[in-house]
């Protein structure tokens, strides 16, 4: 038994900032101080505050150390673990108050969060099945198999109001009921872990931090619909998640929580992994199933829906990772508990990946109906550098933007659709006054053009034509007729594409035109980029009155485009200038500006 647990984050964020090395050093240092039998080092999943990684939490006193370096380890061990003296300089600043150290749960970042899907992330060691069981794991599966009928399970999920967290928001219980209603000798439960939206990483975090929750939920789903085989389709770009899933499946099989006659009942269920090669379209349900079958991952028209004819032509369900992570908790705590959170039509919580121009980059889980203002200003800690909020982009390449006028909108599925965006998988990118909305739309369209599978014409050619028009706009070569054509094309692609990828690809363009038409017009009519992003419409100029002739800019310029002599005002040769902005950053006198 250990008197202290040191939790070190082993999520992708902290791993990339060196947490593995920290863990090794920590273990060696603990050994050196003879504390190996008193202090346990636990590798956990993501805590959410990725911007502060590598993160370390020491229990029982719950001390939160941020941005820990290998050099800090000896001090932490000899001071904190041995003598109980907190290493104040490494504390997360938010927890330090004049009256002492406050609990992590009381910080702005965690205070308004409510963790259900992420409840074990950053708490348990995901590679030890006993730890998951210690927090109530596999109890829901036991309850379902011994006390409930499949119909009761489905009714519970229906009553909870849980909707798919992958983006579309289809009621999960309904999906299960449809699949149960179709008789077949074999059915399949699939888990969509092909998280592809740029900036979204909640599914990865759940898989890395609490893989058994997903396995347990899949077994419950298998019981509910009458399936004995499950597949997790996970992208190969998530090596840590893949590794932890493999370990989890192996442990669950060893404990006979997967396999034949689970809990001594006649229910049998097993799960296998399928690795995706990273095609965005494989996140679409029919393409994903085609890919599991070993064929080229392309979508096919629906109907028939997967609940009728899915994987290998058998009735199948496909649920997203975050959706599944909620299931065991709903079974254990009851549907009323889950339905008591959220808004009328969107129950429970949603995990968002905060990114872009925001202080606390990371993962947050909030009850549905939390306003965008609370998420950005309170939990996210606001926009750095005192810049002005312009918009929040949600739903990645399928979603749209929420402008400042909707800052107080409660976030749920229907509200986001009504203002032209969508929940998507939960990426939330904050944009400030320095971001050009045309450029943002172009960025997402470049992504969909790249990822279009090419099967249907509207998506393959339509998105490319749209991108060409957007490129023309950002270069200042477009006319107002082009803008009209772009809008028309958007509706055409939306209505005629085969699958969700093409049907939603125009959303970023449409929503930026809807809320930021003035920016599009400035590019077209005035040949000006108001945010100063589009390079073709920019020029850098030196203010003659402010320039002291220090020559720093001329020395910095990589293109040799700045001419001038010491103590005389310099000028920029616009023909040579590559608009990198390096001179502006270096100037001490604020003499260089963008025009």
């Amino acid at each position, binding site marked *: 038994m250990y008197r202290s647990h040191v939790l070190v984050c082993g999520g992708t964020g902290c791993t990339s900032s060196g947490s593995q090395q920290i863990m090794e050093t920590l273990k060696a240092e603990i050994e050196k101080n003879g504390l190996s039998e*008193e202090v346990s080092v636990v590798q956990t999943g993501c805590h959410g505050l990725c911007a502060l990684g590598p993160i370390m939490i020491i229990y029982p*006193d719950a001390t939160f150390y941020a941005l820990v370096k290998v050099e800090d380890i000896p001090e932490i061990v000899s001071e904190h673990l041995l003598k*109980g003296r907190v290493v104040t300089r490494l504390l997360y600043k938010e927890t330090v108050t004049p009256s002492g150290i406050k609990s992590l749960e009381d910080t702005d970042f965690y205070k308004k969060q409510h963790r259900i899907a992420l409840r074990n992330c950053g708490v348990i060691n995901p590679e030890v099945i006993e730890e998951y*069981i210690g927090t109530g794991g596999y109890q829901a599966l036991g309850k379902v198999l011994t006390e409930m009928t499949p119909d009761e399970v489905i009714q519970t999920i229906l009553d909870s109001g849980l909707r798919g967290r992958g983006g579309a928001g289809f009621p999960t219980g309904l999906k299960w009921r449809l699949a149960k209603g179709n008789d077949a000798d074999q059915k399949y439960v699939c888990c969509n872990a092909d998280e592809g939206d740029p900036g979204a990483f909640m599914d990865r975090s759940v898989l890395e931090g609490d893989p058994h929750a997903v396995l347990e939920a899949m077994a419950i789903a298998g019981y509910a619909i009458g399936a004995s085989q499950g597949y997790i389709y996970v992208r190969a770009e998530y090596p840590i998640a893949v590794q932890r899933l493999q370990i989890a499946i192996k442990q669950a099989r060893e404990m006979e929580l997967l396999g034949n006659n689970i809990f001594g009942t006649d229910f049998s269920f097993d799960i296998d992994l399928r690795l995706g090669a990273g095609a965005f379209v494989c996140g679409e349900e029919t393409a994903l199933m085609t890919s599991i079958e070993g064929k080229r991952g392309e979508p096919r028209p629906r109907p028939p829906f997967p609940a009728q004819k899915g994987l290998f032509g058998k009735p199948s369900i496909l649920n997203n990772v975050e959706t599944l992570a909620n299931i065991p908790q709903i079974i254990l705590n009851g549907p009323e508990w889950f339905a008591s959170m959220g808004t009328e039509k969107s129950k429970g919580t949603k995990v968002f990946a905060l990114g872009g121009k925001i202080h606390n980059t990371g993962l947050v889980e909030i009850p549905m109906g939390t306003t965008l203002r609370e998420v950005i200003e309170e939990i996210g800690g606001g926009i750095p550098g005192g810049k002005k909020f312009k918009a929040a982009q949600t739903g990645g390449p399928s979603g749209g933007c929420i402008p400042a006028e909707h800052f107080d909108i409660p976030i749920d599925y229907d509200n986001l659709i009504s203002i032209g965006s969508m929940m998507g998988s939960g990426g939330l990118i904050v944009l400030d006054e320095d971001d050009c909305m045309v450029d943002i739309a172009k960025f997402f369209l470049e992504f969909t053009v790249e990822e279009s599978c090419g099967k249907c014409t509207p998506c393959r050619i339509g998105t490319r034509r749209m991108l060409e028009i957007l490129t023309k706009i950002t270069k200042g070569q477009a006319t107002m007729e082009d803008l009209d054509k772009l809008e028309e094309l958007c509706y055409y692609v939306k209505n005629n594409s085969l699958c969700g990828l093409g049907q939603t690809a125009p959303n970023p363009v449409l929503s930026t035109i809807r809320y930021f038409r003035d920016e599009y017009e400035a590019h077209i009519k005035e040949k000006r980029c108001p945010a100063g992003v589009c390079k073709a419409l920019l020029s850098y100029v030196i203010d003659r009155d402010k320039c002291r002739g220090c020559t720093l800019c001329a020395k910095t310029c990589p293109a040799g485009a700045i001419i001038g002599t010491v103590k005389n005002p310099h000028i920029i040769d616009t023909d040579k200038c590559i608009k990198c902005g390096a001179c502006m950053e270096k100037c001490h006198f604020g003499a260089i500006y963008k025009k």
Partner: protein
Amino acid sequence: MKSLEELKAIRERMQNQVNLRESSQSATRVVVGMATCGIASGARPVLTTLSNLVQEKGLTGKITVTQTGCIGLCQYEPIVEVMEPGKEKITYIKMTPEKAEEVVERHLIGGHPVEKYTLNAVDLK
């Protein structure tokens, strides 16, 4: 896993360990002096005894066992302080693992401080 009892047994075994990772601010705090003076006079076995017993007895949700530095009464080390919300702090002195066991049984579980080991029992000059 052939029965729910099997699962329950694992859960109970693991529960108290995982519960150590919950920070409850209102809980009773048991603090062991672990400065040089404390360590030299044998505070570490006292600390581990307290921590193990609290976990074994399933008290991790209510009681937090941690260390602290020197409180200035070095000749009385190892010192253990018990701080219960809303009650006066009890300071135990010259602790040993055996005395710690008694404190867990009678004070932390039973609710009655073990007067004979406390600072009040000696004549401070």
